[in-house]
């Protein structure tokens, strides 16, 4: 990442702003800017990879994706597909 920084102003809900500051502190970031930059960079890396995956493999079955999300988040799954 470049050492040169560009200032960008964003508007946040006050509760989100407060949580952002707390999260940056918990993470030991030098500043809120550093925390936000790291989070955005990670998100953009994820989105770029997802675009590459979709281009190569196509879209994922939406019902299977919803199932996987719930499973990974530890949510209760009432309709469990038949296990292999």
């Amino acid at each position, binding site marked *: 990442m470049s050492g040169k920084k560009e200032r960008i102003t964003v508007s946040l809900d006050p509760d989100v702003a407060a949580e952002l500051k707390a999260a940056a502190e918990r993470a030991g970031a030098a500043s809120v800017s550093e925390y936000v930059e790291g989070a955005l960079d990670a998100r953009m890396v994820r989105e770029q*990879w*997802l675009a*590459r995956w979709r281009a190569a*493999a196509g879209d994922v079955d939406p019902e*299977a*994706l919803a199932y996987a999300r719930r499973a*990974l988040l530890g949510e209760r799954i009432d309709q469990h597909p*038949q296990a292999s």
Partner: protein
Amino acid sequence: MSGRVLTSSAIVDIATDRSVYGRAFLVAAVELGMTFPTPSTALLQAWAAVPPQARALLELFLDAPAVVVEDLDAFVAGRAGVRAHPAHQAGRFDLAAAHAVDVAITRGLAILTAEPGPLRAIDPDVEIEELPAP
């Protein structure tokens, strides 16, 4: 860390689309910012198992932000091998399964697999998330 440890059967599902659920779990993990520790021994088995036309997707899988390859060094080999001794004595030893169980216990994560049998042979109590049938 949150996520799942992958086995070769899960990786093969992802690379070949044998089941829609393998790719669904991978995409969901990337979207959610979760981690899929992937034992190097499972990778070896997957590279051996997938047909040539699926190798490009296996490469892309390895680029996924969620995927972290876990190597089998001498220390891990000793720890995982000792744990797998009873399974070996019973004739039910599988090297990649022993490695996956070790990674799962070390990371405190469940294992995502389509074939739980070899994992249960190593440790009946290891937490497993079985991929639904295709």
